[in-house]
């Protein structure tokens, strides 16, 4: 188990290095630091201000090879944007925003709590609702219940998330006035009122695709031979579903759940920005509007880190959930 974990984490680290390479290519090689600086300080700024800005934001070094140092010197390769990028990202030294000079790390820490208070309930409730309905549908397979839920799912899948948000905010927030339209309060006794609507909309917009997928998984499992054995033993329908099918089906569902984590992030991007929740999603949207490359770069990096971490966790929980998976 330990050896497996070490190997898995090592591969995760290699992937992180790959992601950093991708970010370097995108944000330093394709997007020219000179352009970024020019945009940030304005066209009419003096050369002095321009150079100072570049220095402050760590854009003042050459890309890969620094010819200021001699050919033999090690600093020739370490005193560069490439090396700095890796060093700073790996030590979580994110520097300052290109847009307003505020420290990025502080803003991310401040945004994490509101973000998590939205995405965690969304994630848990969404999974619960999805699995519950899928079980229900699988239970009533080949009846009109099954067919009508399937049609419903198909319709739900075809609606853009933007429309769910606009429609939900209008219908529930403005017409019915059940919840405030937007805003956030860190006090948990008040926060739930602000979070209810985005969570509800998030769950509904993911409903169609989830239920359809989980239903397929459940149906595949109900056709397996061990289900017949369970019935022959005298298990009732409900026991077959909960004690036998669910346990097996959770294994593929687990994989899907982790694959859904980045979607959670992206879903939250829209939800946060629409409902005025000051989380990481809002931060990203602000960065896009403000041409804030350093913040955006950091957000992509954090998103990838979370995803890689999630993948490692899934693989580990996989080995716990499925006795057939042997650690190599």
């Amino acid at each position, binding site marked *: 188990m330990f050896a497996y974990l070490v190997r898995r984490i090592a591969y995760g680290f290699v992937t992180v290095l790959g992601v950093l390479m991708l970010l370097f290519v995108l944000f330093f090689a394709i997007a020219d630091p000179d352009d970024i600086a020019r945009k940030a300080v304005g066209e009419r700024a003096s050369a002095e201000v321009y150079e100072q800005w570049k220095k402050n934001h760590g854009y003042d070094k050459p890309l890969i090879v620094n010819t200021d140092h001699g050919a033999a010197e090690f600093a020739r390769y370490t005193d560069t944007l490439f090396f700095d990028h890796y060093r700073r990202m790996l030590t979580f030294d994110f520097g300052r925003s290109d847009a307003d000079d505020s420290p990025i790390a502080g803003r991310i820490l401040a945004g994490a709590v509101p973000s998590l208070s939205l995405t965690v309930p969304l994630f848990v409730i969404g999974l619960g609702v999805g699995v519950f309905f899928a079980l229900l549908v699988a239970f009533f397979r*080949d009846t009109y219940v099954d067919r009508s839920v399937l049609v419903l799912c198909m319709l739900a899948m075809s609606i853009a998330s933007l429309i769910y948000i606009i429609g939900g905010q209008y219908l529930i927030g403005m017409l019915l006035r059940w919840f405030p339209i937007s805003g956030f309060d860190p006090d948990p006794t008040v926060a739930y009122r602000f979070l209810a609507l985005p969570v509800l909309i998030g769950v509904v917009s993911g409903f169609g695709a989830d239920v359809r997928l989980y239903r397929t998984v459940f149906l595949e499992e109900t056709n*397996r*031979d*061990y289900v*017949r*054995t*369970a*019935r*022959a*033993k*005298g*298990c*009732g329908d409900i*026991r077959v579903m909960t*004690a*036998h099918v669910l*346990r*097996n089906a959770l*294994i593929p569902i687990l994989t899907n759940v982790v694959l859904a984590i980045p979607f959670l992030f992206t879903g939250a991007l829209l939800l946060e920005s629409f409902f005025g929740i000051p989380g990481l999603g809002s931060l990203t949207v602000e960065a896009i509007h403000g041409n804030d490359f350093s913040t955006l770069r950091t957000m992509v990096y954090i998103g990838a880190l979370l995803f890689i971490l999630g993948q490692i966790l899934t693989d580990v929980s996989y080995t716990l*959930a*499925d*006795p*057939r998976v042997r650690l190599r």
Partner: protein
Amino acid sequence: MSKPLLEMQNVSVTFPSGAGRVAVVDEISFSLDEGEVLALVGESGCGKTMAALALMRLIPKPGRAEKTSRITFDGKDVMAASVDDMRALRGYDLSMIFQDPMTCLNPVVRVGDQVVEAIRLHESVSYGAARKRTIELFERVGIPDAEQRFSTYPHLLSGGLKQRVMISMAVATKPRLLIADEPTTALDVTVQAQILELLRELQRDLGTTILLITHDFAVVNELADRVAVMYAGKMVEKGTRYELLKMPRHPYTEGLLGAIPHAAQRGHELNEIEGVVPPPALWPAGCRFTNRCPKAFEPCEGTLPPRIETSGTGVAWCHALAKASGR
């Protein structure tokens, strides 16, 4: 004469197809006395498993047993039993062993717990007591290191051990009737012999009635008291083991027996049956064996074959036999 333990009368199982429903089991009848072993024999796809599943009321959708079927088990009308009654019956008085032990055990549940579940579904005993009984059962069916094996997962066991787990699960509640659906087909030859031996011992010790489903006459020879031969959903011949194996009357039974390679008879040509079982949609209206029967003649194709009493208790359904017996 006492009532038989199980009576199947005119049992039909149908599946929907392009034009209406096709009967994959067509009005078959047989009965089983207490303590008896009946072998239901036929090629794969002839409907013998479906007949057994009809008895368990476990026919997979969209198939169903027709209303005309009458199944009486221990005086109870199985076709009319409620869902709850049926559930109480299954796994308690009526148990089943399946063909492929590889896929029939739940892969993520420890094997011991699967047997415990079978016990605790029907008897209100504590987990500890059920566990103790399971370990005893494991020892009884010849699983070495029963204590440790209790908490292993199926994929770590060999095919033979898995089938032993299946058997212990099926006999855990001392059922009145045990249905063994091809219990040895998926196993290695040496393991097959061990499993057959185990079944015979259990049958002798517990006095269990067994409905044995197989296509293997060696298995029939080992275990069966009586034999019923099916072809394409129809019963073609019934009789005691001796009658069937030594004096087969129906051309299909003759063909099946002729196709067995005997180690002793090298050089003899096997008399294989020509062709294969046609799919249900292409079954002839009359005798379904017509296309492959060496003795087929004009009435075979269109009309159902008559019932002919052969020697002793034997019965066969055949036009050719009817003609030979002078009708």
